[in-house]
């Protein structure tokens, strides 16, 4: 008996090994609505509303400037500390925000998943996509400060050609965040313990990743260890693009891309395998 059009066959471990793109397309309205829900629900009943997305990075950069710049006196490769931290936080915040929101997607949506079927990757995709909204706001703020800096400083110079790298970075960080979130939420579904570790790991990640310090501060012998972290290259690249801080870490950036390209399909397969019977163990 062949499969007729419009026919669904349910079998143990049936269907493709990973997500069916055609099916995902059918649910694109749901994806859009979930993105909207994530954003609207986040700022409902808050006085400042989306202003929080502006306050957070600015306040963080100010605190970093005081603590790491003035008190600890960590050099910033001749770049103005405030912009150095703000640019460092740009992609770090996108990554950390995405992973902390989507790294638990199976657990967080368990009540929904036990009642209705839709591709279970959709909430993760929606969460990640909705992170682009605070990212854009943050980028806007950064651009504001950056233009002001370009106008005021004599040494500052805009390397317009380097801006081509930005979309590459965005895609890379997004892919990394998706791959890591999917892996983490699939693991969390199996081992609940990891749920408690997520916030802590992300906090730790901020210090392991060269966000508040330049890679040049790490001794040559240990630099490879920093580059092992796939987020190190995009963040350093971002600082190089805008502030000419350090050099373009081409090899680490390429290996980070390679890592992301390998991780994504693997994580999707892993997530797919776990989600199929996830509701049985909720």
């Amino acid at each position, binding site marked *: 008996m062949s499969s*007729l059009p*419009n*026919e*669904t*066959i*349910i*079998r*143990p*471990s*049936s269907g493709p090994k990973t997500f069916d793109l055609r099916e995902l397309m059918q*649910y694109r*309205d*749901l994806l*859009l*609505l*979930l993105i*909207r*829900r994530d954003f*609207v*629900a986040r700022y*409902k*009943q808050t006085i400042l509303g989306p202003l929080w997305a502006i306050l957070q990075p600015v306040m963080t950069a100010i605190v970093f400037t005081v603590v790491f710049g003035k008190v600890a006196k960590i050099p910033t490769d001749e770049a103005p500390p405030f912009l150095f931290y703000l640019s460092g936080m740009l992609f770090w915040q996108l990554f950390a925000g995405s992973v902390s929101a989507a790294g638990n997607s199976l657990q967080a949506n368990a009540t*929904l*998943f*036990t*009642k*209705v*079927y*839709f591709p279970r990757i959709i909430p993760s995709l929606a969460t990640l996509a909705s992170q682009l909204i605070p990212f854009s706001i943050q980028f806007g703020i950064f651009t504001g400060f950056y233009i002001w800096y370009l106008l005021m400083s004599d040494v500052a110079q805009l390397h317009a050609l380097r801006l081509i790298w930005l979309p590459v970075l965005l895609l890379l960080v997004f892919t990394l965040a998706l791959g890591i979130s999917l892996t983490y939420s699939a693991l969390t579904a*199996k*081992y*609940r*313990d*990891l749920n408690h570790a997520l916030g802590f790991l992300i906090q730790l990640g901020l210090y392991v990743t060269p966000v508040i310090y330049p890679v040049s501060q790490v001794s040559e012998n240990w630099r490879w260890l920093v580059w092992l972290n796939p987020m190190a290259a995009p963040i350093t690249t971002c600082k190089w693009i805008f502030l000419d801080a350090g050099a373009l870490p081409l090899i680490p950036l390429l290996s980070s891309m390679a890592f992301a390209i390998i991780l994504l399909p693997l994580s999707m397969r892993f997530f797919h395998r776990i989600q*199929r*019977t996830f*509701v*049985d*163990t909720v």
Partner: protein
Amino acid sequence: MDSPVIQVKGLSKEYRIGGIGASSLRDEINARWQQMRGSSQEKSQSIFNALNDVNFSVSKGEILGIIGRNGAGKSTLLKILSRITEPTAGEIRLRGRVASLLEVGTGFHPELSGRENIFLSGAVLGMSRKEISEKFDDIVRFAEIEKFIDSPIKRYSSGMSVRLGFAVAAHLSSDILIVDEVLAVGDVNFQEKCMEKMNQIRSSGRTILFVSHNPISIELLCHRCILLEQGQLVFSGTPRETLDRYEDICRNRHAQVGTEDHGDTSLKVEVWQNNTPCFQPDIAQPMTIRMSFQIPNTWPKVFPNFQLRTSTQQIAFSSVSPHLCSEHCDEKKRSVHYTADCEIPGGLLNAEKYKISAYFLSPNGLTVDSWDNACTFTATENPSLRPINFNGDWVGVLRPTLPWKVSQHEVER
């Protein structure tokens, strides 16, 4: 040829209980470690068959009712049909678009307005934005929430959000609709409206799978019915036939609970009246609670004891036998069987469902062992014997017939 819209073949679903697959990292590392060390630790894992080789098919436009006791596998079947979980074996072929309604208000977010939630819930259930827009007004009208459509649904009364949830789901356009007891929501008016809507869906030629405990709605709506019992399809036929079979099973189950052997005491708790065991004793007549058991030789001497509870677990009373029972009272090493009878006089119990929990108490009052709900029975009454012309439920966990003395005094004004 009209081929079936739903075809279920050899469907089975196993659940693992305990053992590997434990949800804590520590547990799993521990289990692996034990395995590595080659320790012969017995796996505490057991397999539970929620569904066992279920076969049926449904043709286009048919409404199939699914009934069965709690835990018979109805929900598991619906979950597999709606692709929420996977079967362990077997195959299902579904022709056409499936919409399943296992819960009212799936995907609602409390912070969002009714309007936003209609779109969200509709999308979660598989509708496109365009479809929802087309049906939006119908949904709002059906749910009767026109005035509140722009307030967040956390401000809704529970009735309002349930109505909204059902309204969204009822307007799903699909070829196959899977419904799980959602009609048991809302007030009487709304329930009638739901039934009306279901009838409308029924006449539109869609195929419906309908799980319910409500025999009336099953009989009203379904063309055919299947009965699940312990994960197996045990009967398929007209709604009336299937409901009869279902009632038989429920009654048999009652009998089983009463005679279930419990552990090494072989405890049996029964209700006797007129020298026969029965499940519906007459409250006007005396009845006997009989506990038959053996005492394991590891036990101290014990007093048999029981608690009589109502179906809401309120304890009506408890009674303890004044006789100590022990294993050692026979020296010929033959096993001793006890029968402990407690007589409940006529005119003490109320006409309702009671449960008996049996206990064995040591002489210092400690519970040696207990069996909750060892027996369930429904005390009945002949209403014509009531002293007053009142036909409603009599309040109280008991209804003792007590002596009254009413006297008259004449006092001079």
